[in-house]
C-alpha cells in the first residue's frame, strides 16, 4: 500500500514581499557584492576592488570629531543627565523643537540666507529614503505616476515604487545640452504617461542632480514650476546635495524660485533634505520633508510614526547644528574639500583621455566612456562595466542603472575614500586606458 505523504503547504508571502521592484538585482547593486567580497584596503588588500559606487562623504569627518571632542553635552546629557528622562521617553512625531529649529537654520545657511525656513513645516524621517517614499504615499495613489528626469538615482525605482504601487515615467534628457531638462521633454513625458492611461501626480527632481553632479539652472527651475502649475501637479525637489555644491553661488533652491514669486503656487512644492551627504552622517538616519502645503505637513507628520528619528540622535544633532560657528566653518570647509577632490579626479581622468560632464556639486562625477564601447548599446555598456569591475577592479555605476538614454556614461564617486586611494584608482584607470590604446594600435 502506498502511503501518500502530504507535503505541508508552505505559507505564502505577499506580492510586495516577493516582487523585484526593490531593484536590488541590478548591476548597481551587483557591483557592491564584488566589492564586499574583495574590498580594497590601503594596507591589507591593495589589489582589492575600490568602491566608487557609493555616494558617501568622508572628507570632513575630522571636523565632526573635533566638535564632539569639544562638546561633551551633545553625546551625553550632561552631568547627572538632566535632560535624559524627557529625551528617552520622547516619541512625539513633531520631533524635538530644538532640532527642527537647528535643521531650519542649517538649511538656510546652506542657501546663503537667501530664503527662510519655518521649523513647523519640517517633518522628520529616518533618512531621505523614507522621506521620498512618504511623499509618494501622500501625493499619489497606487497606479498613478511620477515624472522623473533621467538619468536618476537608481534607488528611486525602489523608494518611489515598491510599497507605494506608484509608477515612474522618465523625462528623457541627453548629452546634446548637458542633460538639462527642457519644456519639450517635460511635455513628452506627460503625454507618454497619458498614453499609458497613467494619472501624473507630480514631478520629482534632484537638485543638485545625482548622478550628473551639477545644479539645475534658475531658468529651468522656473520652467518646471510653470509646468507643474499648468498641469496642476506637485513638485518634489530632492535637495540632498545642496550643501555639497563647490561654490555657494551656483546652487539655486526651488525655495528661492518660490520666494521670487512671492510664494504663489507654493502649496504644490515639497523639499526633501537629509544629513547623509552634506554632513556625512548616513548612519544616523536623518531626513526631512519641508512642505509649503499644510495638509501634506499634517499627514506626513502622522505618517512619520513609521520612521521616527531616535530622540538621542536628535538631541546630539540639535546641539551640533545650533552651533553657528561650527556650521559656518563646516559648510565652507566641506565645499572646499569636495571641490579639491573633484578637480583631482577630473584632472586625473583627463590625463587618461576621459571626458566628464562639467559638474559643480555632489560626491561624484559623470564620466563619458562611450568612445570605448564595442557597440553603442546597453549591452555594450554592461560589458565595459564588467571589465572595469573585474579587471580594473573599480566599482563604478553604469548609466543604464540610472536609466540614462545614452549608453556609455558612468557615475564615479570620489568622496568616500582617502586621497591616496583616489590616486590609486586614477592610476588604475590610466593604466587601463594605456592598455586599450596599445591594443587598438596593434590591431
Amino acid at each position: 500500500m502506498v502511503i501518500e505523504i502530504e507535503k505541508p503547504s508552505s505559507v505564502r508571502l505577499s506580492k510586495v514581499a516577493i516582487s523585484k521592484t526593490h531593484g536590488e538585482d541590478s548591476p548597481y547593486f551587483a557591483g557592491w557584492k564584488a566589492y564586499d567580497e574583495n574590498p580594497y584596503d590601503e594596507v591589507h588588500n591593495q589589489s582589492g576592488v575600490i568602491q566608487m559606487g557609493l555616494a558617501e562623504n568622508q572628507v570632513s569627518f575630522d571636523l565632526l570629531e573635533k566638535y564632539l571632542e569639544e562638546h561633551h553635552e551633545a553625546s551625553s546629557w550632561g552631568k547627572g543627565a538632566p535632560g535624559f528622562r524627557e529625551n528617552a521617553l520622547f516619541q512625539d512625531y513633531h520631533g524635538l523643537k530644538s532640532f527642527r529649529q537647528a535643521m531650519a537654520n542649517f538649511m538656510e545657511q546652506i542657501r546663503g540666507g537667501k530664503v527662510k525656513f519655518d521649523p513647523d513645516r519640517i517633518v522628520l524621517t529616518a533618512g531621505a529614503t523614507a522621506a521620498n517614499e512618504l511623499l509618494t504615499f501622500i501625493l499619489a495613489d497606487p497606479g498613478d505616476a511620477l515624472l522623473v528626469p533621467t538619468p536618476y538615482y537608481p534607488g528611486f525605482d525602489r523608494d518611489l515604487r515598491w510599497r507605494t504601487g506608484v509608477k515612474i515615467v522618465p523625462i528623457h534628457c541627453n548629452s546634446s545640452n548637458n542633460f538639462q531638462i527642457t519644456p519639450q521633454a517635460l511635455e513628452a513625458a506627460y503625454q507618454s504617461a497619458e498614453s499609458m492611461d497613467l494619472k501624473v501626480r507630480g514631478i520629482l527632481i534632484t537638485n543638485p542632480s545625482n548622478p550628473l553632479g551639477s545644479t539645475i539652472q534658475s531658468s529651468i527651475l522656473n520652467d518646471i514650476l510653470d509646468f507643474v502649475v499648468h498641469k496642476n501637479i506637485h513638485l518634489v525637489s530632492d535637495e540632498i546635495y545642496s550643501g555639497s555644491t563647490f561654490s555657494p553661488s551656483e546652487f539655486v533652491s526651488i525655495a528661492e524660485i518660490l520666494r521670487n514669486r512671492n510664494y504663489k503656487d507654493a502649496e504644490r512644492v515639497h523639499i526633501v533634505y537629509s544629513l547623509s551627504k552634506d554632513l556625512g552622517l548616513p548612519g544616523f538616519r536623518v531626513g526631512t520633508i519641508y512642505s509649503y502645503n499644510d495638509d501634506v505637513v499634517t499627514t506626513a507628520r502622522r505618517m512619520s510614526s513609521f520612521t521616527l528619528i531616535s530622540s538621542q540622535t536628535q538631541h546630539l544633532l540639535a546641539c551640533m547644528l545650533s552651533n553657528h560657528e561650527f556650521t559656518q566653518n563646516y559648510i565652507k570647509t566641506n565645499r572646499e574639500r569636495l571641490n579639491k577632490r573633484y578637480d583631482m579626479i577630473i584632472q586625473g581622468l583627463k590625463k587618461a583621455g576621459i571626458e566628464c560632464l562639467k559638474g559643480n556639486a555632489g560626491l561624484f562625477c559623470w564620466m563619458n566612456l562611450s568612445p570605448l564601447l564595442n557597440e553603442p548599446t546597453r549591452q555594450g555598456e554592461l560589458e565595459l562595466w564588467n571589465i572595469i569591475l573585474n579587471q580594473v577592479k573599480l566599482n563604478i555605476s553604469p548609466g543604464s542603472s540610472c536609466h540614462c538614454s545614452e549608453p556609455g556614461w558612468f557615475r564615479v564617486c570620489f568622496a568616500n575614500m582617502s586621497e591616496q586611494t583616489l590616486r590609486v584608482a586614477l592610476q588604475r584607470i590610466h593604466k587601463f586606458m594605456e592598455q586599450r590604446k596599445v591594443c587598438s594600435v596593434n590591431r
Partner: protein
Amino acid sequence: MTQTRYYRTRSPEPEKEKTGGGGGTAMRVIVPLQGVVQGRGGLVLGSIIPCALFYFLQFYLKRNRDDPDDKNESNSTGQNPTTRSPSSEHLTELPGLTRSLSRALLSPRNSGPVSISARVSGIVKGGDSPYYMGLKRVKEDPYDELDNPNGVIQLGLAENKLSLDLVKDWLAENAREAILGNGKELSISGIAPYQPFDGLMEFKVAVAGFMSQVMENAVSFNPSQIVLTAGATPAIEILSFCLADTGNAFLVPTPYYPGFDRDVKWRTGVEIIHVPCRSADNFHLSIAALDRSFNQAKKRGLKVRGVIISNPSNPAGNLLNRETLYSLLDFAREKNIHIISNEILAGSTLGNEEFVSMAEIVDQEDTDRKRVHIVYGLSKDLSLPGFRVGVIYTFNEDVLAAARKLSRFSATSAPTQCLLISMLSDTKFVRTFITTNWERLQRMYVQLVAGLEKMGIKSIKSSGGFYCWADMSGFISSYSEKGEVELWDKLLNIGKVNVTPGSCCHCIEPGWFRFCFATLTEKDIPIVMERIQKVLKPVN
C-alpha cells in the same frame, strides 16, 4: 508588600492538545449574544443575510456617490468610523482607504487646489479618536505635582516611567564612551557611514541576549533572524506588507491596541477582522471565536492571511498559556496562515503566571516555524520609546529577506545602536533593571487595583503589561458606546484624568476602560482616585 513572583522552575515540554473540530460547533451555541443567530442553520443565515444586505448597501452607495474630495467618511467631531466602529462579528472594518479611491477618479483634473492621494485624504479631514484626543489634552495641560497640580494626569499612554532612573544613572556614567568609543578611541567614523539597514550585527547580538533575559532564559534568540526597525510600529507595518496583499485581512482578537488600526491597515490597504473576546472569558482568546471569524470571512470572499496576537495582551493584560499557543499554531497550520506574536511587553510581567513566547512553542515544532513572526522592542521593557528600537524576529527566510530590504525605510540610528550595545552588554545592569522593574510594576499595579476596587470598580486580573482593564459599565449613563464616551469625556475634562475607553480598543462590551499605571508615582494614586470619585455617579 510584594506577592511571591511566579518564576519558571522547569524546562518547557511540548504539551500539545489538539482542539477537536467537533467541539467547535457545540461551543458556538453556548456563547451569549450570538444566541440569536448561532446554531447550525442560524449560523449560515445569520452570516449570509447581513452580508448580502451589506453588499447591496455598498453597491448602492458607490453608484450614488458623487461628492468631491471635501466630504469624507469621517467628520471632525471624533466620529471616525475606522477607529470607533462598534465591534460586531458580522461587519468587517471598512477600509476607508479603498472606498475613497473611487473618489479620486471623480475629482476633475486641472481645477481647484492640487490634490493629495485618496489614500490619505481621509486622514487629513477626519477627526481624532478619543485615544489621540486624550493624549493631546495631556500634552497641553500636563499634571505636575508642583508646577501644575490641576493638570491632566496621564493614564492613557503606555510608557514605563517607573524604572527610568536606573537607565538614566547608567547613561550618566557611560553614555559618551558608549556612543563614540566603546572602549576604543573616540571616533565618528564608526557610526557615521552607511550601516546595514537592518541593524549592526553587534547590536542584534545584544538585543537577542536581552530578549532571552527578559523571558527568563526559557528560549534563546538567533541574532541572524533579527531585523531591527525604528520602533515596533514599523515592525508591525513591515510584517503586514510582507504577509498580506491589499484587500487581504488579519484576524485580531479584541480588545486590541488602538495603534494597530494605523500600523496594520493604513498604507498597506490590509484589513483587520475583529475577533471579540468577552468578559465572561476574562477576555481570553478563544480558538473557536477565531475559527468562526475565519469562516465568516471566507464566506464573504475575504482572504485571511494571519492572526495577530499580543502576549501579554493590551489592554486586558492576559498571558496566553502554553495550551492556547499550541492550539493557535494548530489553527494557523490548518488554515495555512501566519501568526504575528506581538511580545513587546514580555519583560513587563506581573509575576502571577509564566510568560511563554511563541518562539518557545516553535522551538520544538520544526515544521510550522515559517508561519511564526515575533515583534519586540525596547520601548516598553527598557523604557526607551524615544530611541526607536523595534525587532522583527522570524524563522521564515523569505520574510527575513524582504523585511531586511524594507527596513531601509525605518532604520535605527547608528549612534543609538552603539549606545545600547554597551548598555545591553552590561548583563549585571540588565539583570538588576529587569528584577527591579518587575517589583515596581507589581507594586504600582496592586495599589491602583486596590484604589479602584474601593470605588466599586472591578478589573480583570492582569498578568502583564502596564494596564488595569477595568469595568466601569455600572457608571455609564447608557450601556452603549455613547455612554462610555460620555464618561471618558467627563473623566478627562472634569476629573482631569486621561484614560482609554474600551471602544478605542474595539471592545465589544461597553463600559470597559484602560488605566495605564506605569506613568504614575505612588503619590499620584490617591489623587487619581479622588478625581475619579468626583466624577462618578452610579447609574441606577
